[in-house]
């Protein structure tokens, strides 16, 4: 299904700007959907870890070893305490797109339709954005993306 998304800055930190995205026909941004689904008593500690992780990455930079590699530049926030996954796409050491995520109950995310859609959609968006950066349509200056327009792609 062809859908469009728009990117927006989630947070700016000293060394990293975190973006998230929203399907133009959706009300909420993908990170907000993840946050709203998991900010509860059950996942209190996990959310503590994730927010603190965002802060540390923001301080230190988006160094590869802080992420769990998934596919290409699509990575996940690694949490040993649980199988929760929050998918990210690293544009550079100072720009990261945070998408949606959830509990990984299968061996690979591809086996879970929901996680597969979160991860693969983010991967598609990231690839298109990298292509736009390479072609000079989108530029990076001071940890910020300029020239952003809605991105259309075949979503899962």
């Amino acid at each position, binding site marked *: 299904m062809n859908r469009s998304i728009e990117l927006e800055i989630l947070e700016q930190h000293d060394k990293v700007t975190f973006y998230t995205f929203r399907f133009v026909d959706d009300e909420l941004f993908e990170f907000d959907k993840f*946050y709203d689904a998991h900010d509860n008593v059950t996942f209190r500690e996990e959310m*503590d870890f994730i927010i*603190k992780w965002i802060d540390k990455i923001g301080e*230190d930079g988006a160094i590869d070893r802080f992420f769990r590699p998934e596919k290409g530049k699509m990575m996940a926030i690694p949490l040993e305490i649980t199988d929760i996954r929050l998918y990210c796409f690293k544009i550079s050491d100072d720009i990261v797109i945070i998408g949606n995520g959830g509990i990984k109950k299968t061996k690979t995310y591809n086996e879970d339709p929901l996680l597969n859609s979160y991860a693969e959609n983010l991967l598609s968006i990231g690839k298109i954005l990298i292509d736009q950066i390479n072609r000079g349509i989108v530029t990076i200056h001071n940890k910020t993306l300029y020239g952003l327009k809605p991105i259309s792609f075949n979503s899962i």
Partner: protein
Amino acid sequence: MKKNPKLELRRKRISPEVKSLIDKSFAISEQIDLILKQKGLTQKQLAKMLEKSESEISKWMSGVHNFTLSTIVKIELALGEQITICPKDAKIEYTFVITSPSSSAATINANNTNTWDSLIYGDAMNLILGEQKFNVAIPENCIN
């Protein structure tokens, strides 16, 4: 810098234990990374030295690993370097480059108060700690 209001509110509720755990885990992984770079070693080589899988080492280096003391000791022995040090055992050596009124440099062992005698109250200096440089003035109570 833009901050998300929802996350800002949530930050206030992060448990002190998680905050401290991640701060320490990041610090330990950064120290291991530094030693590996200094020794020209890769994570793969460290894995081989410790008879661990590369994915296990990756977890350690992620900044969110809950290290056991046993793991830290094994890494320290394999690398031949200390990763963590207790404040009691820490010996801090500061290098002061005096920029005013003289430009002479002095290396001062902070644990040896005798070496502070050469400094003059009010001197402005650059304090170099590792690769970081700070501008400092000598406080009055530092000099007898």
